[in-house]
C-alpha cells in the first residue's frame, strides 16, 4: 500500500470522490441530498464539482453531511490535494452524477477489487421502515474478494462483491457484525463490531480499504427520519374508568340526595377495586 500510494503521489495522481457544487444557501423543495465518503486509505484529495473546488484536503474515513443540491447532473472530478484545477492531476473522473429530485445519494471514493481508485455512486434507500424496525445497508467498497456478513455466528449476507450493496430490514437493535471471506465463518476480516441498527434509520456500513495492504476498515453513515409510528395506543381494557365517569355525572345531576348516593357509591367502588387487587 505504501508503495502504491507513493507511486500515485509521485505521478501526481491521488484520489477520489464526488461532490456537490452550486450549493444554494438554503435547501429548496425537491433538492437532492448527496453525501460524500472518502474510503481510500492513506491519501488526501480534493473534490471538484462542475469545475469548482468543493472539498479541499478531504481525508480518508471522512464523510460529509448531506449537501442539498438542486436536481441536475453534476460533473465531479477528484484530484491530488495540490491540484490547481479540476483537470490538474486528476485521479478520478470527471464522472457524471445524475441527482433526481428528492433523491438521497452517497458518492464514495474507494478502491476497486483490484486495488485501484474508483468512484461508486449509491442511491440510499429512504423508504419508510416498519414500526420497530431499522434498515441495515452493507456496501463492499474494499480491495478484497467477495465477503459474507455475519450477525453473531450466522451469515446474514452472502457473496457480496465490490462495489455492490445488500439491504436488510431488521428489528431495531445492536447487530454484532463480522466480515468474512465468502463461504467461511472465520477468521473475521473485519469485526466483530457492534452496529446500532436504530429504529427508523438506514444504517449504512461500508467495508473499505485493502485486504492485501491490511487496511480494511468499517465506516458508518446514517440516514434517519424513516420511521413509521405505532398503529395506535390502546390504553384501556375494562371500561371501568368510563363507567365511573358516567356514574359520577349522573349522581351530580341528582343533586344533594345524589351526593349521598355518590358517597356510598364511591365507598362501594373503592371496596370493589380493593377486592380486585
Amino acid at each position: 500500500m505504501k508503495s502504491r500510494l507513493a507511486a500515485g503521489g509521485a505521478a501526481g495522481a491521488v484520489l477520489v470522490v464526488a461532490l456537490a457544487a452550486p450549493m444554494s444557501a438554503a435547501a429548496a423543495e425537491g433538492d437532492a441530498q448527496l453525501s460524500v465518503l472518502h474510503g481510500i486509505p492513506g491519501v488526501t484529495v480534493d473534490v471538484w464539482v462542475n469545475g469548482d473546488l468543493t472539498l479541499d484536503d478531504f481525508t480518508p474515513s471522512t464523510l460529509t453531511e448531506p449537501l442539498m443540491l438542486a436536481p441536475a447532473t453534476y460533473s465531479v472530478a477528484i484530484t491530488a490535494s495540490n491540484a490547481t484545477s479540476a483537470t490538474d492531476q486528476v485521479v478520478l473522473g470527471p464522472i457524471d452524477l445524475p441527482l433526481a429530485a428528492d433523491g438521497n445519494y452517497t458518492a464514495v471514493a474507494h478502491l476497486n477489487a483490484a486495488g485501484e481508485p474508483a468512484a461508486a455512486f449509491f442511491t440510499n434507500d429512504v423508504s419508510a421502515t416498519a414500526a420497530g424496525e431499522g434498515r441495515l445497508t452493507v456496501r463492499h467498497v474494499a480491495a478484497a474478494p467477495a465477503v459474507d456478513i455475519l450477525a453473531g455466528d450466522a451469515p446474514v449476507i452472502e457473496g457480496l462483491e465490490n462495489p455492490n450493496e445488500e439491504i436488510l430490514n431488521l428489528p431495531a437493535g445492536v447487530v454484532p457484525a463480522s466480515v468474512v471471506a465468502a463461504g467461511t465463518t472465520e477468521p473475521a476480516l473485519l469485526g466483530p463490531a457492534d452496529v446500532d441498527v436504530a429504529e427508523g434509520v438506514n444504517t449504512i456500513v461500508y467495508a473499505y480499504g485493502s485486504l492485501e495492504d491490511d487496511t480494511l476498515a468499517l465506516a458508518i453513515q446514517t440516514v434517519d427520519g424513516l420511521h413509521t409510528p405505532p398503529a395506535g395506543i390502546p390504553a384501556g381494557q375494562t371500561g371501568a374508568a368510563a363507567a365511573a365517569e358516567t356514574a359520577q355525572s349522573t349522581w351530580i345531576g341528582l343533586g344533594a340526595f345524589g351526593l349521598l348516593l355518590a358517597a356510598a357509591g364511591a365507598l362501594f367502588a373503592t371496596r370493589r377495586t380493593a377486592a380486585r387487587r
Partner: protein
Amino acid sequence: MRSALILVLTLPLLAGCAAAGAPVASAAPDPSPSPSASASPSAAVPEIVTKDASIGNAQSAATVAPVRLSIPQLNIDMRIDAMGLDGDGAMALPDNALDAGWYKFGPGVANDAGATVIAAHVDSRHDGIGPFSRLKDASLGSTISVAGTDGSTVDYVVTEVRSVGKIDAPMAEVFDRAGDPRLTLVTCGGDFDSSTGHYVDNIILTAIPVGK
C-alpha cells in the same frame, strides 16, 4: 501517506506561482466567466461539514430513558417502563394501569427535538382504574416533572389537553420526532365500546419544557 502530506504542503507554493502569472491553472476563483450555476464568483471553498465516519465513533447521542413521571396537580407519581410495540403494531403498555410506558424508539428525556411519548392504561384488568384517568382534568400551565435514568429531571408545563377519536388519532403527529421538544402523554377516554373492548377516544396531553 507521507507523499500525500508533502503534496498538501506544496499546494501554497503552486498557487503562488499561478498568481504570479503562470499561464493557466489557478487554484482559487476562476477568473473566467463563471457558469450560471455559481452565483458568487468570489466564493472560496464552501463550508461543508464533515465528520469521522469510523465505526468507533458513536453513531448517535445516547437517548436518556425517562423512569419517573410526576404531576402534582393530579396527584400522579408513576414509574415509567421502556416499551416498544405489541403484536398488532400498536404501542405496548405496562399491564398495570399504575405504571406508565415510554415509547423507547422515540425521543427520550431532554431531547433536542420531537415528542417524548409516555402512555398508560386508563383502566386495566390487572389493577383497575389508573392515575391517567385524571389526565383529562389537567389544567393548562400545570407542572409535570420527568426524571431520567441519568438522574436528571426535566420540568414541563401543560399547553394542551384534547380528546381525539381513535379513528382520527394523529399517530404521526403524536410520535413526531422533529419540531420543538415536547412531552406527550396519552391514555384512553370517551365511551368504552364493549363489543371491541376498546375506548373510542385517546386523551392527548401536550407539555413543553419550562423556559422554552
